[in-house]
């Protein structure tokens, strides 16, 4: 049984939990500086959550902005006992899913892998991420939600309004395609070498 990498998506440098508590408190009271600091701190992680689903920079910019505005307006409903990053990321992911449903191009066509991967990323990581990008959106999304954003299979099913069995099947097919793609890449590299 796979256990998703809890917290994997939230490694970016962010305020500590105690910082968060104070910032959230001040933001709730209308302090613009607190809102600004929260927005700056959580923009990257929210953006990456949206980008992982959409693989489209411009769409991710829009989606994340809306998600962040929505999240910061909804701080009164944030459960302070929980960390802020997963909450904001999920709002961004949900908004990205809405965009995916709305935008035919994004929903039907495999994404173009970006050319500006993170500088510190290893080639192996880039290869896997590129293979994920090339998956059909329906498969890519379940994979991204499950492995990158730590959704359980049931949560993926709820987010996509699909039966759990369908999600499990898509995950399985996505993994198979990914494995195949990775093998092709490795064979190609060997051939080139």
């Amino acid at each position, binding site marked *: 049984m796979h256990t998703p*990498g809890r917290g*994997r*998506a939230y490694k970016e440098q962010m305020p500590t939990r105690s910082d968060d*508590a*104070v910032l*959230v*408190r*001040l933001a*709730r*009271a*209308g*302090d*613009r*500086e607190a*809102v*600004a600091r929260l*927005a*700056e701190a959580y*923009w*990257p992680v929210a*953006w*990456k959550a949206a*980008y*992982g689903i959409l693989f489209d*920079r*411009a*769409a*991710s*910019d*829009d989606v*994340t*902005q*809306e998600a*962040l*505005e*929505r999240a*910061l*307006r*909804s701080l009164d*409903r944030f459960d*302070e006992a929980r960390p802020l990053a997963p909450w904001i990321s999920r709002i961004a992911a949900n908004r990205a899913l809405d965009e995916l449903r709305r*935008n035919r191009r994004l929903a039907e066509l495999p994404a173009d892998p*970006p050319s*500006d*991967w*993170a500088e*510190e*990323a*290893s080639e*192996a*990581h*880039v290869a*896997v*991420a590129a293979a994920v990008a090339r998956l059909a959106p329906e498969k890519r999304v379940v994979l991204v939600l499950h*492995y*990158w954003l730590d959704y359980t299979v049931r949560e993926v099913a709820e987010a996509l309004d699909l039966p759990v069995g369908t999600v499990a099947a898509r995950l399985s097919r996505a*993994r*198979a395609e*990914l*494995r195949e793609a990775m093998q092709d890449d490795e064979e190609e590299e060997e051939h080139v070498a």
Partner: protein
Amino acid sequence: MSPDLERRLQDAWEALPLPSASATSRARDAVLGRRRRFRRALPFALALALASAGGLAAGRSLAPAAGPALPSAAVGFVPAAGWTVLQTGNDATPQHPARALAANVPIHPDDEPHRLPLRTLQSLPRDGIVIVARFTALPDGSPAPAAGQLPLRVADARPEIQFSAEVRPQRPLGQFQLHRTVGGYRVDLHLYFGSRQPSAGARAEAQRQLDRLLVAGPAAGVRERRLAAVAPPAVQSAVCPRYAPNVKLTFGPTGPVYPGQERPTARSRFASVHTDGVTRRGGHLAYLRATAVTREIDAVCTPVRLRPNPSAARLGPRYVHRLTSDGVGWFVAPDGFRLIHPNYNCVVGGRIVVHSSALRDDRRRVVGNRFSVRLERTNELLAVAELRPAGPTWFRVSNRCTQTRY
């Protein structure tokens, strides 16, 4: 999938690119309400931010109790005797929530209405009271709080001490919060008392100011009676705000930005702000003109704000060009209105249909008008309210220009 590959899949998150600095900066500004969102979905990459046309949104109005100021948006406090009020003047949209600050003590000069008034709170005397209010038009993408009716009641507020984040730990304040939906707005109130256990007198004093909370939303009927009771004296003593247009027209992330221009019109009681822009995308010419008008009558200013928010989407070989504008304004004595439409230009051919609506409060009932107008291109849209001796009016106009063919 092997465990190794599964781990690589999880770790591949690290390889994802980071957002661009410009997008981050833009988002920060948007979250802070400084700039409107650029919409990626525009094939012509048109985005227009027209804000603060009446000069109210950018500034704040300080109103002593003897001379209450008209809230720039139709939300805020009319100060009770002995109280001071600051308002942000924002338009209370989700992007620009309006904030108001009321205190029965002098507000520290370092404190502003858009943030927690820390300096005032830190020196708040035992009988001091500060009320911070935030207004956001609904829907704002999140569940609305429980419905409330004006006047909101101090007795309904609940204690608010969270995260051990006392504003003044050495001499704790009494902190309370109240969240309600009123007149189409989310109203978030934070009440601060100089003592942790406010006396009945202090609560009554806070209630006296809370009684003068104005919330005039799209559902104008909700506060109709309230306006008739409170707004006229506020209007009569209002000081004409400085006219400070803040208009930007933006074409795409790298396109030109045109600042707004203030041009007094032939009729001296009007001032208008025009924004013009031309862009070429995909071989097609896109042109947009937006106009905001303020109207001044005697010493009282009556802003009308049109906030075009154009968007367009490419649908195969055809284009749909949709231009929406949304305006709100206070009028001193309008009774009736008319819309004139010069120069509302969607150059890429076809017919324009403008759907408009307006609400008018004549003290007895709220009148709504909705209509559609077909225009040839090169028409311009202006909203004008006519003067009659009547009560203050909540005016809302929503125009949509739809073009469906070349």
